[in-house]
């Protein structure tokens, strides 16, 4: 099973003719993702790695029916229009693999998708992978690498860092586990979907026996997961590793989302919240599979 994407998921690419859009279309298709079309206004009739190009998303819907996922590769400065377009066309999930989007645009997108009943992942996510079935975005990089490091199995993975979304699956693999679905939630301070929003999906997924998280200081995503667990809406073993535990307060990083201020979002607050809710904290990433081995009963 896995969550969000499978080999049946109908995927389109907005911005399919640009450098990144074209390269990732090739990769997604080679990996097995059902890429049914892409958009680039004025280029209808062209093909990108065998995928037909359309002018608009609505055109694809008229031609091929409902769309499950749109992967967007356009600059952050014009992302809002692209997200509105997909939402207006009734696309069920949108994942902009784009950084540098103005924050007021992001807040508008999030509100707009909520009105339309569309799930927005990110912005600033590098993607989602359900190993052996499908990938959206550029998580995995290329087919050879993706096959080598993303082994299918029973652990759902969240990563707050794009770069680290390969690390936890690798550590799990070394520790004898595979992964059901890996999700990078995005780098922006405001996200359409947080880990807490997705935890119930992992709860429902029979293949997923536990969830592992690469967490970071800043924000309150981990604390929100603790609330979901405490409310009994996620009951499987939940293990987090929090990077930045040694960072002094106020130290800043490239993502605006990981600034520690006044105790909120600190590693300590996250670890305490998770432990209190009944989850587990790994001191180092390599402890994650050891904890999961002990806690998963079957």
């Amino acid at each position, binding site marked *: 099973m896995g969550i969000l994407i499978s080999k049946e998921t109908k995927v389109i690419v907005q911005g399919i003719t640009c450098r990144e859009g074209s390269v990732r279309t090739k990769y997604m298709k080679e990996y097995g993702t059902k890429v049914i079309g892409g958009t680039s206004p004025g280029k209808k009739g062209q093909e990108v790695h065998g995928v037909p190009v359309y002018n608009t998303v609505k055109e694809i819907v008229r031609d091929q029916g409902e769309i499950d996922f749109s992967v967007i590769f356009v600059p952050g400065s014009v992302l809002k229009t692209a997200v509105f377009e997909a939402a207006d066309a009734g696309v069920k999930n949108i994942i902009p693999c784009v950084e540098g989007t103005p924050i007021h645009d992001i807040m508008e997108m999030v509100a707009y998708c909520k009105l339309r009943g569309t799930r927005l992942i990110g912005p600033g996510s590098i993607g989602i992978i359900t190993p052996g079935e499908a990938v959206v975005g550029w998580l995995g990089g290329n087919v050879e690498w993706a096959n080598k490091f993303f082994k299918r199995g029973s652990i759902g993975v969240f990563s707050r860092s794009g770069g680290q979304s390969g690390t936890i699956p690798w550590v799990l693999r070394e520790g004898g586990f595979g992964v059901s679905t890996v999700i990078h939630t995005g780098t922006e301070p405001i996200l359409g979907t947080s880990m807490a929003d997705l935890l119930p999906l992992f709860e429902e997924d029979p293949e997923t026996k536990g969830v592992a998280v690469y967490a*970071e200081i800043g924000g*309150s995503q981990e604390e929100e997961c603790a609330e979901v667990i405490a409310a009994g809406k996620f009951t499987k073993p939940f293990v987090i590793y929090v990077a930045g535990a040694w960072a002094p307060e106020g130290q800043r990083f490239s993502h*605006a989302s*990981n600034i520690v201020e006044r105790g909120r979002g600190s590693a300590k607050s996250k670890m305490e919240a998770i432990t209190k809710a009944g989850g587990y904290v790994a001191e180092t*990433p390599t402890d994650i599979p050891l904890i999961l081995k002990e806690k998963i009963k079957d």
Partner: protein
Amino acid sequence: MAKFLEYQGKEWLRKAGMPVPKGKVASSPEEAKEVAEWIGGPVAVKGQVQAGGRGKAGIVKLVNTPEEAAAAAAEILSKTVKGLPVRQVLIEEKLDIKKEYYCSFVINNAREARSPMLMFSTEGGMDIESVPEELIFKLNIDPIFGFKTYDAIDFCVKAGIPDDELSKFASFLTKLAKIYKEYDCQTLEINPFVMTGNGDLVCADCKMEIDNSAVGRHPEFGIKIARDLPGEPTELDLIGWSIEETDARGTGFLMNMGYDEVSPGYIGYHPIGGGSAMMGLDALNQVGLKPANYADTSGNPVGSKIYRVAKCVLSQPNIDGYLLGGFMMANQEQWHHANALVKVLWEELPKKPGLPCVLLLCGNKEDESLEILRKGLADLMTPDGPGKRIEIYGKEYVTDTKFIGERLAALAKEYRAEKEAHGK
């Protein structure tokens, strides 16, 4: 965020139709005197720096004559606040203050909000942290539909504004909400805004921070570096920004972190990606080392970009080491990093012989990358060579912040001892 000084923020508020005191900025006592004469009557002289607590730091003064304004300006312009020299003063008409209020607009990233949030209090003028929680009124604002006047009136009633002043306050706050969005602010804080003796609301102070990602659509602001910097941009910051500005292929982020280029224990820091940066900092902080700078070469940058970042990091004076902290199983092909590093180390290490360099590179094309490093650096890494303290690690250590930190600390200790022995 690109932060404006008070006088800049007020200028933009004025242009947007908000009431601000009559005033102008001055950079010398003579100019201050001229502005005071132009205003006429008592004035406030306010030092312009990016720091809170200006009153306590003694850089805000109320005076009665242009001569006194010149004297106050001379005193304030000679001061330094939190390491920042005061280069300008704002001269403003002295307000007849009846009452002070607080308001700010910020981004609320809580799961149930994901929207702008207004905070308002009738107890303005002081640090917001010292205002009791029950006297701060908060409201999330719909990002699409905005802040409606009737909602503002509703809100002001709850916050304790008397009936005859409701419309005035509602109009003031809704205007600010509009400006907050139109100017793409991350933060807009007016503390205090005041009611004057004749009942007008005026913005007595202004803290305005523009969203870095939106700077591109506001050429009118003339912002040179869209980045969070602790003070004025250093030479390294300017080079860093030029690398990023001229080449959009992947990230090549570089900024100063307050290193004075003299103190011991600082490491030229080169992580790859925000997540690995955090683990790298854990590695350094665990062993008492500090990052001289912050850098990031993730998002699949081209080799030339990585080369320029690494070159800047390594050429910082008096660093005690260099860490390529690739604490991640990268999706990007890592051989671009390997090639760039070989070139940079050959250029820089002869100038800093024996500098500890711990290179951790893991993930896509790792074997090939480590081979490029080992082969390319072999002749530099001889027992007496300038690269004798280069150590190369791969995925076996990808999450081992403790080991990497300890290796760097041990090598840095040797290096410092060696430098001292040479009388440097």
